[in-house]
């Protein structure tokens, strides 16, 4: 990228450092979430992954999505996951018999192959990037306006889906009369 250094906004001076700090946080904690032995540890690692993703969204210019990420993922989904763990985890897990490493090896090998393909695509693909990116500016009012004009139908459908899912979930876990 040949960009005139004078055109780079001052507030971007630290954005690369922020990017790498966030990347280290996200990748380490995602590895923990994927491969930690204890499921509670995995959930805590997922917490740091989700926070780091919110940092990425700030760097990419959507602070609203970052806040949404923290509110919905960390405040909603992760708490739901923790409740699921607490409700279904037994203190004395019996020893799983056999072939756990086989699944892990198969998963890791398949994932590495897939990552090779993805990395090759990313390395060779003709990605068109806009030169001279300007500084991100506040986008909340644009998003809000679009949600009630252009995206009204998907927005309402998403709301109905959420309602139906909550009713369905409550129905599924109701206490049955025996």
């Amino acid at each position, binding site marked *: *990228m040949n960009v005139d*250094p004078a055109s*780079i906004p001052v507030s971007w001076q630290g*954005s*690369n450092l922020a990017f*790498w700090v966030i990347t280290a946080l996200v*990748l380490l904690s*995602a*590895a923990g*979430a*994927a*491969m930690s032995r204890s*499921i509670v540890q995995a*959930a805590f690692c*997922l917490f740091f*992954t*989700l926070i780091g*993703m919110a940092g*990425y*969204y700030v*760097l*990419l*210019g959507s602070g609203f*999505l970052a806040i949404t*990420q923290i509110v919905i*993922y960390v405040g*909603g*989904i992760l708490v739901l*996951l923790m409740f*699921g*763990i607490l*409700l*279904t985890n*037994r203190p004395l897990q019996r020893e799983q018999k056999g072939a*756990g490493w086989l699944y*892990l090896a*198969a*998963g*890791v090998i398949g*994932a590495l192959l*897939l990552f090779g393909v993805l*990395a090759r695509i*990313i390395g060779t693909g003709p990605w*068109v*990037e*806009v030169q001279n*990116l*300007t500084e*991100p*500016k506040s986008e909340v009012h*644009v998003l809000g306006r*679009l949600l009630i004009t*252009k995206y009204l139908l998907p927005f309402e459908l*998403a709301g109905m889906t*959420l309602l139906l*899912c909550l009713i369905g*979930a*409550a129905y*599924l*876990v109701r206490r049955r009369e025996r």
Partner: protein
Amino acid sequence: MSNYISIASDYLSKAAHFLGLTSGHPAGLHLYLIVAAILFVLGLVACMARRNAIGILIGIELILNAAILNFMAFWRFRGGMETDAATMAGPMMGIFVMILAACEAAIALAILLNLYFNFGTVEVDSVHQMKR
């Protein structure tokens, strides 16, 4: 001693230059795509290797986050708000993916609780069908 220090500082400055810390340019599209690919692959590993169903759910969350990161990176580096204020495709897709992820987590937890009530475990290997 000062020789080592100068060598180390030389390497450090080279590494900083490689990582883009000296130029002041923001990290580019490729880096975000690579990070998203790594996240996706880690989620896939979790889905394939975990036995606990909640671990599989955590893997799915990682995959969904990788998808949102891809949407946001493409949106940003194709111009972001300067060229796309009429649709805001990146953040919009992120919002809708998050809504569907919330739905999915709620339903999956309900099913898992039912599995646990019926079988006393959520290990996917020992649950071959959903009813007794």
